[in-house]
């Protein structure tokens, strides 16, 4: 048994949200540089240049790369040998989020109620929190500040087993085609396939926590990711939707066993401000 005070979690959450919003990371910048070299359209190059320069300014000046600093999404994997002390973990996480959004001059974008009271909560809470248990005595924290521009272009569909791989591919590509310029391409496409209705959606979100150069550990899915990336980039939506070869930088698929009658597919779109950060305590 290892005791961990939730104050540690609170401070980690604050640091992670600041880091995620300010620093896109060198790997992502290199990926954008490669995309810029591959583009033949002047406008596409011009857009990618602006994005790269933007990301460098954000890192250098420690300001958010995008004004939409997102809903605060938090994934916790808690070792079952951990004993939590201190204030309630939900409170600790929300306080950590509020502190990051205040201290880092991040935009607070949460409203109290979606229909009846669209008034800002003024501290970007509540966070959206998912808990999972793992073996061991450590806690893994992943955070994603998720902007609405790309989130609004996401879709889920309950396909049938007969739709199969081709049906799944058609749905994913169609979703990106319909999104067009709206979700700030070049995008990252998170796909959740299998499980139940909500499990597929959750998997598609988790798919957006991968590193930019990371592919599926399952060869068949890694191949499918490659094929989908090619098909999506053939759409000629391009950077900022102004045409070009780079519509998507990566397709990340997460799968789970499902029902004999089911084939749920969820597509969660991430913008080029591919923000996530993780720590193990």
């Amino acid at each position, binding site marked *: 048994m290892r005791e961990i005070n939730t104050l540690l979690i609170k401070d980690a959450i604050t640091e992670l949200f600041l880091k995620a919003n300010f620093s896109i990371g060198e790997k992502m910048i290199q990926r954008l540089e490669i995309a810029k070299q591959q583009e033949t359209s*002047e*406008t596409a190059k*011009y*857009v990618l240049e*602006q*994005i790269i*320069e*933007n*990301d460098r*300014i*954000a890192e250098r*000046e420690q*300001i*958010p*790369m*995008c*004004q*939409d*600093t997102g809903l605060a999404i938090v994934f916790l994997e808690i070792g079952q040998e951990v004993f939590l002390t201190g204030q309630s973990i939900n409170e600790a996480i929300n306080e950590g989020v509020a502190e990051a959004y205040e201290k880092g*001059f*991040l*935009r*607070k*974008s949460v409203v109290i109620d979606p229909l009846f009271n*669209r008034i*800002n909560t*003024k501290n970007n809470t509540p966070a959206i929190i998912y808990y999972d248990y793992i073996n061991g005595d450590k806690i893994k924290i992943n955070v994603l500040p998720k902007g*609405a*521009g790309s989130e*609004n272009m996401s879709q889920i569909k309950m396909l049938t087993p007969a739709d199969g791989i081709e049906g799944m591919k058609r749905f994913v590509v169609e979703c990106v085609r319909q999104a*067009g*310029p*709206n*979700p*700030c391409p070049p995008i990252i496409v998170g796909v959740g396939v299998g499980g139940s209705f909500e499990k597929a959606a959750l998997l598609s979100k988790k798919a957006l926590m991968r590193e930019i150069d990371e592919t599926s550990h399952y060869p068949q899915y890694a191949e499918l990711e490659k094929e989908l990336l090619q098909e999506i980039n053939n759409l000629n939506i391009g*950077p*900022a*939707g*102004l*045409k070009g070869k780079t519509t998507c930088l990566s397709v990340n698929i997460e799968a789970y066993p499902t029902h004999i009658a089911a084939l749920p597919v969820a597509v969660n779109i991430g*913008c*080029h*401000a591919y923000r996530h950060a993780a720590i193990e305590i």
Partner: protein
Amino acid sequence: MEIKHVKLPLDYEKIIALKAGDRVLLTGYLYTARDAAHKRLKESLEKNETLPFDLSGQTLYYVGPAPAKPGYVVGPAGPTTSYRMDPYTPALLDHGLKGMIGKGIRNQTVIDAIIRNQCVYFAAVGGAAALISKTIKSKELIDYEDLGTEAIFKLYVEEFPVVVVIDAFGNNLYQ
């Protein structure tokens, strides 16, 4: 490709010289408005109330900036997705609004109103918020302060980088 320099506010001559696909650097005053402000502007028009500013020849920037760090004029301020403004836009264009800056697709009703009133729709690069904020030189609150980041601000911009997406003749770069 040649980059055009355009001074705000817009007028007929400036607008008809712009073609879908043109890269433009905008200099001058513009006003911010996004979802909640658009709803109020349209409601005011329907009630024949005076608007917080005269729309004639003006350009709206769809943005909700992040807070400014000490010593900064404004926080990061990139465009938000335009289609959410579509239900309110034709009424504003019919009342003199000439330019819009956002990102993403507009519906046919908006495109018709752009052609009817000879206006222009620009796209800024979504997510280039830190970069764009460097072109914003002043920020003044105009109205709807209770809306926070969604309030209407008057911004002075210098060489704000945009691309013409829909021109006054209805040419659409996204298509």
